[in-house]
């Protein structure tokens, strides 16, 4: 055995304390942190327990208080947080009575924490090895040499290939999956009996996601208690023994995995389940044969950044009225392709055609008149809006494109019509982007894209920043608008499930190239390219599939170079 702490330590201490976590009536508030100085009650009296070797999953929508709960268990809710609990026993100690040194003794040694933002949870300026070594040395009198040896051991056990090399690198030189594993290694360095993992797989590609889940599974098997936090039921379905569903700072439903998955009581739980299942269902709509001329066409598009080919000889056709999905892991060149198609980035080779006419080859001046035809819905709507503009002004700008100045009232009606079209209350007209929720923001982005009356919509990861439930709503809206307005849709996502719901045809990208292209159901049910198969295998599912485990556990395709960092 590689000796990852939890096994030995867990064994030794197993008899001492039964329950690792005993939480009752936990409340966390941030006084004065809300809008207008109101108090924020982030967690409102929740309770749960966790035993060694067990996994409790905390699921719920964004903002429901999952992370705050996790941090409060380690006394790290922040200087402004007010934490209160009827009972708060962590690793057998009464956490309510702990002072700062007491907490310090608990942290790392008894309880390991894997923070939500894996990509930024390691100090970017220090070597990965130093980060892990710090965890090792914080709780032992190991010499530097011993600590270094232990670091390598830990990294290897966490499934990091070439640990000597990785220990010497800095976080930005590691892919997201590797970073997440290094982070878990550092959390396990003190051989804690309890591991808290906050969204350990969000923002990772499906293949990498699968590897991390496997690692956590092993940790649990070694005897440590695991508190797993996620907003995605499909992700936790595999690991959790028990599931607690949070909403608005409260636990609305708690029970065994089977109970929650098969007979959910709370509507929210059901919504979460529905969202997860949608990805697994085959597309309902009948596929239309692509008709006539291409609305948008890529011919051998190539783009280099430095000596790296981000997009390499990509040819695609988006037919009229068609929805084409473009999938691929992070850094595979999806966004770059889209930008070239939109005429925002000049291709180094090849050409993009818009409705059969030259497009990327034209100067911007000539393109401007036709821009109304093709519109973009970006991944991150917040950055796509001028932060100081109101919704009204944003939409007015879009409406004014290519149209003569309208009378005030007319424009206002047009704005209201747009908002209604995307199912938004026209009263939101006066809000600024920062004052909208993620789902509302994305709807405004869609409304803005619709304003000039486009025939083609390019959506670059339009839902990946959203909750699963909101995600589902937006996807439904897009589907509806498409049929109602007769739009052609280029839909980009790294999430296979999402693509499957939306597209008529799918193109799979990897390393800048299209490796497979075909009708959606054909690609999903009978993938030809091994890479497509690998992607599909890694897709998290509510119901475990028996044949997949071998594919998951292999060290497999870590992107060789730091792609997340660069993109």
């Amino acid at each position, binding site marked *: 055995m590689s000796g990852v702490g939890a096994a030995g330590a867990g064994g030794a201490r197993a008899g001492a304390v039964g329950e690792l976590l005993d939480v009752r009536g936990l409340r966390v508030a941030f006084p004065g942190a809300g809008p207008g100085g109101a108090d924020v009650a982030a967690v409102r009296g929740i309770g749960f327990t966790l035993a060694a070797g067990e996994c409790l999953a905390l699921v719920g929508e964004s903002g429901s208080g999952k992370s705050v709960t996790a941090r409060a268990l*380690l006394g790290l809710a922040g200087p402004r947080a007010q934490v209160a609990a009827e009972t708060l026993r962590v690793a057998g100690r009464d956490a309510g009575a702990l002072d*700062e040194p007491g907490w310090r003794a608990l*942290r*790392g040694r008894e309880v*390991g*924490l894997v923070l939500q933002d894996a990509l930024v949870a390691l100090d*970017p300026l220090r070597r990965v090895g130093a980060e892990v070594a*710090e965890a090792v040395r914080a709780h032992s009198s190991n010499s530097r040499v011993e600590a270094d040896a232990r670091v390598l051991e830990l990294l290897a056990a966490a499934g990091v290939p070439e640990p000597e090399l990785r220990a010497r690198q800095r976080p930005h030189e590691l892919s997201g999956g590797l970073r997440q594993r290094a982070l878990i290694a550092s959390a396990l360095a003190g051989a804690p009996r309890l591991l808290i993992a906050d969204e350990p797989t969000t923002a990772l590609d499906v293949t990498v996601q699968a590897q991390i889940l496997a690692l956590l599974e092993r940790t649990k098997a070694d005897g440590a208690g695991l508190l797993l936090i996620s907003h995605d039921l499909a992700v936790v379905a595999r690991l959790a023994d028990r599931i607690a569903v949070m909403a608005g700072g409260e636990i609305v439903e708690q029970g065994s995995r089977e109970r929650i998955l098969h007979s959910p009581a709370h509507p929210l739980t059901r919504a979460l389940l529905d969202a997860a299942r949608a990805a697994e269902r085959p597309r309902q709509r009948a596929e239309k044969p692509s008709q006539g001329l291409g609305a948008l066409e890529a011919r051998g598009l190539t783009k280099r950044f430095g000596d790296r080919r981000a997009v390499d000889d990509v040819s695609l056709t988006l037919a009229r009225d068609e929805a084409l999905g473009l999938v691929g892991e992070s850094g595979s060149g999806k966004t770059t392709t889209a930008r070239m198609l939109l005429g925002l980035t000049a291709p180094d080779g090849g050409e993009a055609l818009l409705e059969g006419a030259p497009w990327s080859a034209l100067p911007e001046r000539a393109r401007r008149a036709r821009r109304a035809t093709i519109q973009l819905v970006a991944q991150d709507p917040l950055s796509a809006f001028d932060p100081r503009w109101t919704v009204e002004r944003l939409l007015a700008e879009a409406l004014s494109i290519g149209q003569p100045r309208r009378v005030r009232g007319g424009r206002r009606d047009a704005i209201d019509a747009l908002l209604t079209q995307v199912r938004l209350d026209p009263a939101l007209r006066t809000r600024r982007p920062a004052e909208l929720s993620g789902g509302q923001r994305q709807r405004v982005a869609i409304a803005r894209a619709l304003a000039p009356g486009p025939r083609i919509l390019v959506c670059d990861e339009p839902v990946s920043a959203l909750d699963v439930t909101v995600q589902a709503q937006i996807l439904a809206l897009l589907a509806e608008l498409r049929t109602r307005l007769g739009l052609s849709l280029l839909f980009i996502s790294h999430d296979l499930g999402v693509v499957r719901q939306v597209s008529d045809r799918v193109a799979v990208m990897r390393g800048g190239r299209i490796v497979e292209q075909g009708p959606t159901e054909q690609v999903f049910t009978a993938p030809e390219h091994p890479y497509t198969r690998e992607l599909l295998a890694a897709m998290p599912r509510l119901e475990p599939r028996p044949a997949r485990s071998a594919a998951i556990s292999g060290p497999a395709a870590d992107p060789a170079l730091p792609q997340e960092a660069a993109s």
Partner: protein
Amino acid sequence: MSGALAAARAGRAPRGALARRVALRLATMVAVMVGAATVAFLALELVADDPVRTVIGLRPATPELLAQVRSDLGLDRSLPERWLLWVGGIAHGDLGTSYQLQRPVLEIVGEQLLPTVELALTAFLLGAAGGTLLALATAGRRPRARAASGAAELLALSTPPFWLGIVLLTVFSFQLGWFPVIGAGESGLRALVLPAVTLAVPIAAMLAQVLRDGLEQALAQPFATTARARGISELRLRTHHALRHALLAVMTLSGWIVGSLLGGAVVVETVFGRQGIGRVAATAISSADVPTVMGVVLLSSFFFVVVNALVDLLYPLVDPRLRGRA
């Protein structure tokens, strides 16, 4: 696997390209320096009074004398010709001859360089140490201490430096007698204290503000929470994690620091009657001593350019994320 790739990549960068990059950078540096000196040249030559008149001042000046001085100073040549001569001179380490002192500019500047560098360096070290300690001690802690030090910093930044210098002198030299103004040798070192402190106070204040801000930002980052979750002490978190991040913010200040050291020298050297470039510069400008002004500007822009280049080199050392980007 990826290591091999990275190595291969590094190997691919041809050595010639690196040399070309270095050469280009050096050329840009020199161009900026010469450019700065040229600004002074054009300004003084085109707009100021006749330099010959200024040089002679109100001494009796017959037309013959005027003509003689004009040719002595080489002012009988055309403007572009003089500029070319000057630029040509730099290549041979000749910065021309001061109109006012009738000595080679290189010599004048050379003998004043060391005291200014000594003063500036001491001030910088004092300022950096003071600012760092202050920031470390107050970042994200006790609101009252933070407010007090914040107020002190604002005060320090709002005080005219010559005034501060005189006050420091009055108290610490004239009243308490701790640090002499007049001193050489061993007491010369003590005589350095007050001018250096005068120069260092605003730097320390500015650094403290920027550093504290950087520290607080770093301490609010997820990696700081992760580090805390490992059970390390607060001090270690500050010194081993946050400080380095804050340093990045400070490095963007380097241009300002160089400027404030050199510019501050003008005032501080006058107050304390110290040797140095600053005083030479002030007198040279006020007497339109074009070659000397150009020499001083060339030199001070040299420091600016060099420090900027150093910072550019240091950035990737402090922040490895920047490595490998051109």
